């Protein structure tokens, strides 16, 4: 009990200290005291053996991955490798997944993952797939929510800084990707000072196959050379439209922090994608030569394959009437969020002191009335007063992103004043504000980007933690903070560290996914060309200096586990099949001297690593995943003879050819 009190007191000390560092004392009614009451702690407590209510998929930012957490506990369940190699899982290292990281620039081992978005049906999240964009080498990935594995990555041509991505339309017709940086299209060798008029932006629409989820680059819309920052689909009444914030309408190319902040207003681009479909059908596009990688995982062969896209259909926003309209929005708007009913488009000018809400209904009327305030590169600029529905005054400093609770309220993050502000749609009044620690970017309410948010929890994702946790040298974690938003006031109930940068997240109720996750891969469905489906199928075959070992693993041995006839200079392929057909019985394998990662192989799956022995001797391999009581016995040897020697190929288990009676 004594220890508990001590701990309790130091906790109070920490909270007081932290909020005094936050610099928000004047602008907030402190949320810190609430977390200390035991009932708060209980709200985030999920007892051992119990399940969380929600899945949260929080991107890892510069880690390139997507992490899966439970809410309200904040427990980390899995890091899904997407755009970066992951030696823990062999992703991007084994022969099967290397192709997932192919791009037109060659093999890229790293990515910057940003905005996960769950597929939708009728405007509600349906739990089929989750999409996520890569910012640096423009790509979109699709992850299966059955296997929690990356199944497809498509590169976006004519794009640079793939930031206003990867948001899906309300029936998952398209996943949409806008370019942040404008560049010369096609790329060419010109002075950077010739930016204006020569640099262009691209908004890409990728059609989603409704059965398998496969993405297809349907068309791009060629846009003026602004920066396209964030985007969201219309829904309900505004279904068929897509909204993109822009900044740098100044078309500057240097010292952007100053030069891209000169205009009082930039734009939200309203794109009529149903109109775009009509134009495509009517042949009003040009076909441009491009090259982009399209990497697809095959569930039967357990192998990814790259195909190369060679052209793209392009619609020119400057010459095709009715395709795009610009909505003036103050101060370099960043977040672009659409209310669950599809009526309001919220623009967050990142240098503004207020939030701007545009009305979709007013926008349609303004278009009908031709209430234009000039044009930019042939694209009509709608009159601000004709489309504006209102603004949230004095909400905070540096608004970034807004999500909705489905009960008529909106929640906006403020980076500079480091807080989340709750406000009311329609009346635009501020209802509550809570500090966050510190400098929040996105926030997430499960289902927040849909017609049906689940307004129970809100996660704020912070870029800076400073003194929030035990220090770990100069590099400290970033964090997520969990609020209970079921009442009138937001209540901070938990904060937890995240992997990489918790850039953005998507969430859904646990029961949407937990009943349908894959448990094992069936051996009878394994069509990997080098699979050994029984121990009797194992073999070692030499083809010149390549040696292919079709190996199996089962508790607690490899078959074969003694291999001879390998020579220095050989390229040895270990094709290893996990014969287990029981849930949660993975095995791993690694070989001394292999210049790659381990393999971590789920039941029924086949994976391959390459080993190029450089030294004569007898070299061991072993199981890297503690699989059974006799895990330490799960090992084997390979005999390596000198180059040019004639040691015959021999492979055995228990002195016999594996599977022999």
């Amino acid at each position: 009990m004594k220890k508990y009190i001590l701990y309790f007191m130091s906790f109070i000390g920490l909270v007081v200290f932290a909020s005094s560092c936050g610099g928000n004392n004047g602008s907030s009614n402190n949320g810190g005291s609430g977390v200390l009451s035991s009932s708060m702690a209980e709200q985030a407590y999920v007892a051992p053996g119990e399940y969380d209510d929600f899945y949260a998929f929080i991107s890892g930012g510069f880690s390139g991955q997507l992490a899966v957490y439970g809410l309200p506990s904040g427990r980390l369940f899995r890091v899904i490798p997407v755009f970066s190699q992951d030696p823990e899982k062999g992703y991007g290292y084994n022969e099967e997944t290397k192709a997932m990281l192919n791009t037109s620039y060659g093999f890229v081992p790293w990515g910057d993952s940003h905005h996960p978005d769950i597929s939708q049906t009728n405007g509600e999240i349906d739990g089929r797939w989750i999409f996520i964009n890569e910012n640096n080498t423009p790509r979109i990935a699709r992850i299966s929510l059955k296997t929690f594995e990356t199944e497809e990555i498509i590169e976006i041509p004519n794009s640079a800084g793939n930031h206003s991505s990867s948001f899906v339309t309300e029936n998952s017709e398209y996943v949409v990707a806008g370019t942040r940086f404008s560049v010369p299209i096609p790329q060419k060798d010109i002075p950077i000072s010739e930016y204006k008029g020569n640099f262009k932006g691209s908004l890409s629409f990728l059609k989603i196959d409704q059965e398998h989820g496969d993405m297809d680059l349907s068309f791009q819309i060629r846009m003026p050379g602004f920066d396209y920052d964030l985007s969201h689909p219309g829904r309900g009444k505004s279904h068929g439209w897509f909204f993109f914030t822009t900044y740098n309408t100044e078309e500057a190319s240097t010292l952007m922090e100053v030069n891209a902040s000169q205009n009082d207003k930039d734009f939200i681009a309203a794109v009529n994608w149903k109109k775009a479909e009509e134009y495509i059908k009517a042949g009003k596009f040009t076909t441009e030569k491009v090259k982009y990688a399209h990497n697809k995982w095959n569930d039967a062969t357990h192998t990814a394959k790259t195909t190369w896209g060679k052209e793209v259909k392009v619609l020119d926003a400057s010459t095709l009437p009715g395709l795009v309209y610009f909505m003036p929005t103050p101060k370099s708007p960043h977040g672009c969020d659409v209310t669950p009913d599809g009526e309001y488009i919220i623009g967050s000018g990142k240098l503004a002191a207020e939030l701007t809400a545009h009305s979709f209904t007013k926008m349609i009327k303004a278009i009908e009335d031709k209430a234009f305030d000039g044009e930019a590169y042939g694209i009509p600029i709608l009159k601000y007063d004709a489309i504006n529905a209102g603004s949230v005054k004095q909400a905070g400093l540096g608004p970034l992103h807004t999500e909705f609770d489905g009960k008529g309220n909106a929640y906006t993050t403020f980076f500079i004043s480091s807080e989340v502000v709750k406000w009311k749609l329609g009346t635009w009044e501020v209802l509550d504000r809570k500090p966050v620690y510190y400098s929040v970017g996105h926030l997430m309410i499960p289902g927040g980007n849909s017609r049906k948010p689940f307004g129970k929890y809100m996660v704020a994702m912070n870029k800076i933690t400073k003194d929030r946790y035990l220090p770990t040298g100069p590099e400290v974690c970033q964090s997520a903070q969990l609020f209970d938003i079921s009442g009138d006031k937001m209540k901070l109930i938990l904060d937890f560290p995240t992997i990489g940068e918790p850039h953005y997240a998507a969430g859904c109720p646990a029961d949407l996914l937990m009943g349908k996750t894959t448990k094992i891969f069936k051996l009878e469905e394994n069509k990997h060309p080098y699979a050994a489906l029984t121990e009797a199928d194992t073999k070692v075959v030499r083809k010149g200096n390549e040696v292919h070992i079709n190996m199996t693993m089962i508790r607690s041995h490899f078959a074969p586990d003694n291999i001879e006839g390998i020579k220095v200079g050989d390229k040895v392929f270990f094709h290893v099949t996990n014969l287990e057909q029981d849930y949660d019985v993975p095995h791993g394998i690694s070989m001394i001297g292999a210049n790659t990662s381990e393999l971590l192989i789920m039941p029924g799956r086949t994976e391959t690593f390459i080993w190029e022995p450089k030294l004569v001797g007898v070299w061991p391999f072993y199981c890297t995943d503690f699989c059974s009581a006799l895990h330490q016995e799960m090992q084997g040897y390979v005999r390596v003879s000198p180059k040019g020697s004639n040691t015959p190929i021999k492979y055995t288990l228990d002195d016999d050819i594996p599977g022999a009676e």
Partner: protein
Amino acid sequence: MQIASSIDDFSTLVAAIKAAGVENAVVNAGPLTIFAPLNSAFAKLPKGTVETLLKPENKSKLAFILTNHVAPANYPTKQLKKEAKKKRKLYMASGKYLEVVTKDDGMYVGGVKIIKTVKASNGWIHVIDDLLLPAE
């Protein structure tokens, strides 16, 4: 364990596993090979023996006997034949070893005949009609 619980013929074994507190050991990841005595095997013991063993004060003795029926490894029939051929003993969870012999009428482990074999998700169950009692 699920398999054992679902068959009436193993009710004594199941009761004994519960009484000895080794339930978790037989549902774990495995692999495990269990030589599972039928009720009739327990019935062959002198009268009152089972009742005595099930008493709380004999918990450790019972656990020892039961773990002498469990091998922490994969021993399908094919593998057992190989062990017999190579004259290798089975290491049991009790710490003792059992001999495997192939006779004309089937496989014998620790002198007890295997009647039937069932695959379980975490290993193998060989049904026997006598207990594998350690010498002591």
